[in-house]
């Protein structure tokens, strides 16, 4: 304990006055009184200074994890946040069984949510329609019953899989699964593009997502997977739970991701930015192995947005990305062909967050920070 050579009442007075000062409860008389105690007791100065400095650290507002908590909160009470418009529900309940051919087993809902404003466009491949009719008259139909959900550029959609898992499919993506075996021993889907998954927990039946570069196995969790074949990187970002990632070209190696971590893999042998991250080094031999980076998911300190999942909140968000990549993102987002005619513009970097804006708005904003011109056509844009 602090031993001061003062009488105890003056001491107690000091702590009480300092408390009041720090918590902004002190009157001007009290502040004066504190001042005079400090004058008479120089050795108290240090305590006052140090505690003041410590107190001011409060300004750091820690919001780690609250973005993910918000998504869970919204999901938990979705009926109160998502207003349905023109619901078209094709629904069939009950588990998968032989007698239930269940082409529409998947609860396919075409809803427009106010939060997400997903424009749902659900395309089921002819394969499954074919089987739906075929399956009725033949018993030997353990074959292809592929359901394929496709989003065109400019569209995003939400689907509920037969096991109750929810998938938000970003623009220009497709998700396939085999209706006849999904949810039997495994729950397997194939993704090309980007999707945010909220997987219903079922340890008995692992949920596996196949992408070009990696397979992701989960038991029940929330995460985002991005695997567009025309992009440089395949990545999986975990919000909640845990997932196990297996790389296509290194099947023996498994990587377990913890919440708020993301893994990125170069689609070709490209350099990935690996600042401040733990890197699993590629083996130093002649075989070229894609570079893998695992890093922490962090909301941007000023905007509080986690870039990886911003799109699920209907935000077109990019952080320090070059115009070439942004053009590709806008192309998918707005469904308009975006071309950059001037090579020197491709490497300009931008950070931005857009909601409900048109492509013209977005380009006009970007233009403000580093100038370029653009020409808007009916279904294309040229930046020059």
């Amino acid at each position, binding site marked *: 304990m602090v031993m001061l050579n003062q009488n105890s009442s003056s001491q107690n007075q000091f702590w009480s006055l300092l408390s009041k000062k720090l918590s902004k409860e002190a009157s001007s008389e009290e502040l004066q009184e504190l001042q005079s105690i400090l004058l008479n007791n120089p050795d108290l100065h240090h305590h006052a200074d140090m*505690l003041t*400095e410590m107190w001011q650290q409060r300004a750091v507002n820690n*919001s780690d*994890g609250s973005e993910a908590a918000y998504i869970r909160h919204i999901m938990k009470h979705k009926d109160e946040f998502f207003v349905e418009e023109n619901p078209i529900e094709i629904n069939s309940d009950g588990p998968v069984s032989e007698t239930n051919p269940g082409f529409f087993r998947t609860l396919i809902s075409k809803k427009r949510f106010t939060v997400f404003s997903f424009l749902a466009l659900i395309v089921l491949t002819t394969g499954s329609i074919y089987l739906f009719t075929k399956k009725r008259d033949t018993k030997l139909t353990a074959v292809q019953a592929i359901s394929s959900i496709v989003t065109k550029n400019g569209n995003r959609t939400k689907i509920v899989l037969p096991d109750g898992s929810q998938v938000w499919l970003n623009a220009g993506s497709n998700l396939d699964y085999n209706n006849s075996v999904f949810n039997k021993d495994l729950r397997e889907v194939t993704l090309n593009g980007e999707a945010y998954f909220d997987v219903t927990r079922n340890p008995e039946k692992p949920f596996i997502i196949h992408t070009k570069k990696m397979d992701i196995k989960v038991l029940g969790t929330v995460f985002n997977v991005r695997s567009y074949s025309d992009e440089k990187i395949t990545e999986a970002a975990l919000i909640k739970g845990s997932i196990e990632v297996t790389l296509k070209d290194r099947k023996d190696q498994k990587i377990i991701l913890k919440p708020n971590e993301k893994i990125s893999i170069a689609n070709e042998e490209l350099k990935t930015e690996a600042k401040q991250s733990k890197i699993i080094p590629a083996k130093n031999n002649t075989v070229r192995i894609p570079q893998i980076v695992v890093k922490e998911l962090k909301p941007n300190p000023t905007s*509080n947005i986690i870039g990886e999942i911003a799109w699920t909140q209907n935000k077109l968000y990019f952080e320090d990305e070059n115009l070439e990549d942004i053009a590709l993102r806008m192309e998918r987002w707005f469904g308009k062909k975006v071309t950059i005619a001037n090579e020197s513009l491709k490497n300009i970097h931008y950070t931005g967050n857009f909601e409900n804006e048109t492509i013209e708005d977005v380009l006009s904003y970007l233009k403000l920070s580093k100038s370029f011109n653009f020409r808007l056509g009916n279904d294309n844009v040229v930046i020059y």
Partner: protein
Amino acid sequence: MNIPEDLSHLCERIANDDQLAYRQLFIQFYNKLSRFVMGFTKSKELTEEIVSDVFINIWRRRKNIEEIKNLKLYLYVSAKNITFNYLKKLHRENLTDLDLVEIEPEDPFADPGAAMITREMNLKLKAAINNLPPRCKLIFTLIKEDGLTYKQTAQLLNISESTVENQLSIALKRISGAIRYTFRHN
């Protein structure tokens, strides 16, 4: 650094169904309310459920949210009430005792590089804060981290303002002791 938006302005937007304003309110208070609730429940899952309840109630009554005089205090009081109801349901009323509350405050210096203190001192401070008696630590945290006033803290915890004042003095005095100790050994 987050500059907290004026709450009355947020309220106005929430009353107009603005989910972005609602989200901002959530993000601003989620961790703080969780820390407070966690002190009583000691369960992460239950805490998340309770804080989610606090916020869904806000959304449900958004049309008259502007009737709430002090939204910040309202959030804490509502968190406390819901927590105590849950604990009652679970027959864990004993956990509502302020002397059993286990609060985990933020690190005294989250970014020690920025402040003129040594790592050792930071650890000493942290230990001193953690060793405060439960009630004292709770009051210290509510005032320092959550920015509640003496009066709000007193209302929230059903204690007198002079108790709040005393407890905070005790906290500072004890924490200061840790600093002195460090200096002697430097």
